[in-house]
């Protein structure tokens, strides 16, 4: 296809093309809506209102955004070292397990701030461990990381169910979930924080782990582009032979990147367990890991882009829920379709419009 090789201005590559892709994904979603007898315009309106139209909606949107920032960053960091981590799903799950185990063990004895700090560390540690093994297998045994991380997603599921059903379940409780955590293990909700300074904000699951997510995004930016470790990660990701030449050990750097990637995904556990659910339960992680791939791709693996893409996905999730709530013939799976379309057009077909745009530029300059 002509034009795919042409160099285009940065604003086209990171601005115009992704925008066109999102628009295409949404247009095709509109067709799907139309297919199931839903007026796409009406749907769009409800979706937008649900996502940004009122405080609770915004709260939910940002709450989802928090998770997507974590998993999006996770995918991006691995991507920079040249690995495809599609195990964010499992790492988030196990990260939450870390939080849960720690809090269940210590919430009676350790004061709040320390407990929260420890449980954040536990999330990172558990998530990192779950990414480390596939990372190690890739770096030292050459097993395909895409396959192993998928397998580890399944394994995380089995492990969690085993623990929840047989070990951690609250006695007498029907649902496979642990006892509620003591309030010392709760992260402050945003609406409570606002209330404390006298602003009324509707209740939503949004809690201060959003700040952790933004901090992570900033940290990831510094780490990847401003530190020697990030430099090494990018070197390994771009050219392994050059990395060896530069005295970098690719296997170690890969492990480092995978561990960080897993830790970031593990933070989903902080948002979910410390922030929202306040107990350990099944499937709190569901879907965030896979969506993280799309978030990272759309964000061009750059933290700023990831935060924006995470916001888009957060809005899609919350707006989609609103849509399903308001329109009786819209079911919740439509959101999955939209998500698939966004991944398809923003990820796999990211160059769809490049030849076209490249041609337009040629005409202009010629």
């Amino acid at each position, binding site marked *: 296809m002509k034009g795919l090789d042409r160099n285009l201005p940065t604003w086209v590559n990171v601005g115009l093309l992704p925008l066109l892709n999102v628009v295409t994904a949404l247009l095709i979603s509109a067709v799907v809506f139309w297919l199931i007898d839903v007026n796409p315009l009406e749907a769009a309106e409800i979706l937008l209102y649900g996502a940004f139209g009122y405080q609770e909606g915004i709260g939910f949107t940002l709450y989802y955004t928090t998770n997507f920032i974590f998993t999006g960053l996770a995918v991006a960091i691995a991507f920079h070292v040249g690995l495809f981590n599609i195990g964010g799903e499992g790492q988030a799950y196990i990260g939450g397990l870390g939080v849960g185990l720690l809090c269940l063990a210590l919430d009676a004895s350790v004061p709040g701030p320390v407990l929260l700090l420890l449980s954040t560390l536990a999330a990172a540690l558990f998530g990192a461990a779950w990414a480390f093994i596939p990372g190690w297998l890739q770096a030292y045994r050459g097993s395909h990381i895409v396959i192993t991380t998928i397998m580890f997603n399944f394994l995380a599921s089995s492990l969690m169910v085993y623990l929840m059903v047989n070990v951690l379940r609250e006695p007498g409780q*029907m*649902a496979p979930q642990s006892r509620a955590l003591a309030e010392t293990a709760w992260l402050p909700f945003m609406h409570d924080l606002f209330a404390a300074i006298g602003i009324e904000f509707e209740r939503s699951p949004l809690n201060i782990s959003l700040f952790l997510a933004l901090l992570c995004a900033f940290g990831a930016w510094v780490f990847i582009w401003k530190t020697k470790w990030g430099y090494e990660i990018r070197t390994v990701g771009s050219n392994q032979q050059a990395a060896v030449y530069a005295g970098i050990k690719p296997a170690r750097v890969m492990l480092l990147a995978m561990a960080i990637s897993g830790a970031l995904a593990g933070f989903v556990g902080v948002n979910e367990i410390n922030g929202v659910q306040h107990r350990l339960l099944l499937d*709190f992680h569901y879907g965030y890991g896979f969506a993280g791939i799309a978030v990272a791709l759309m964000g061009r693996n750059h933290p700023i882009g990831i935060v924006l893409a995470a916001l888009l996905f957060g809005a899609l999730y919350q707006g989609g829920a609103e849509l399903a709530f308001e329109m009786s013939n819209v079911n919740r799976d439509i959101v999955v379709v939209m998500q698939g379309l966004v991944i398809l057009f923003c990820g796999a077909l990211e160059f769809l419009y490049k030849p076209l745009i490249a041609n337009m530029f040629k005409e202009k300059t010629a």
Partner: protein
Amino acid sequence: KPAVVYDKAGKFDKSFNEAVFRGAEKFKKDTGVEVKEVEPTNEAQVEQGLEKLARRGSSPIVAVGFSQANAVSSVSAKYPDVQFTLIDMVVDNPNVHSIVFKEHEGSFLVGALAAMKSATGKVGFIGGMDIPLIRKFGCGFEQGAKYENPKAEVFTNMIGSTGAAFNNPGKAAELAKSQFDSGADVIFAAAGSSGSGVYQAAKDVGKYAIGVDSNQNHLHPGTMLTSMVKRVDVAAYSNWMAAKDGKWEPGVEALGLAENGVDWALDEHNRSLVTKEMEEKVNQIKADIISGKIKVHDYMSDNSCKY
């Protein structure tokens, strides 16, 4: 303004969510009143849905499934004027009506019937996801079979350990075939959508299967021995009706055989499979359970199936 919040399996789970859905449909048909439905996809949306409904003045709000207990307990506390009905779990708030079912009693009945029908003395149970609720079904079934035939052998299998186990008829069919191969000739499936695999397998080899939750006898007349019905639809329906008539009351309702909350299904589709003698015997057992002569152990009471 009646409403319902399904659990994460969705309203078409071929199981109790779907039963509630049927109750809602019937209610709509009978009264012409819309029932607002919410299908959450994750934990956060459960509470979001309940709260949104409560805020908009829906009442009573039926919350389906034990996993909504936490959400119901916190939302009901915040909206004391709204009536909540929780199915499959108990929440002790003044504006909550809790409905639980004695699935073990119904399972006991079909277990006994299975043992009567079995020529080999071997019967099977196939559960969906390995969670306490499903074990409760299995435990009741086993007791019933053993009650009828102390030498009966009961095979117990679970399809899987995640929610996906309720959507895996292929695996269910394999498990069923494996049990049939080992000599079982009646299998009770408590596995949501996966159950269809078991029923199909039974039909393919000409052996018997027992349906669950709703009356599934019609699926394969001739090989569906019976169904253990759990009257969630009735419970939900009568709940909305009660509210409509101003008779809604909080409290705990435990529906067993006595209350017609669980039962076994006998209709034209399985009439030919159940002899008069068997029918009488099952009904006798039913009466004995109701009268307390037969004690059915509830798995949930001590998390084990020792009886």
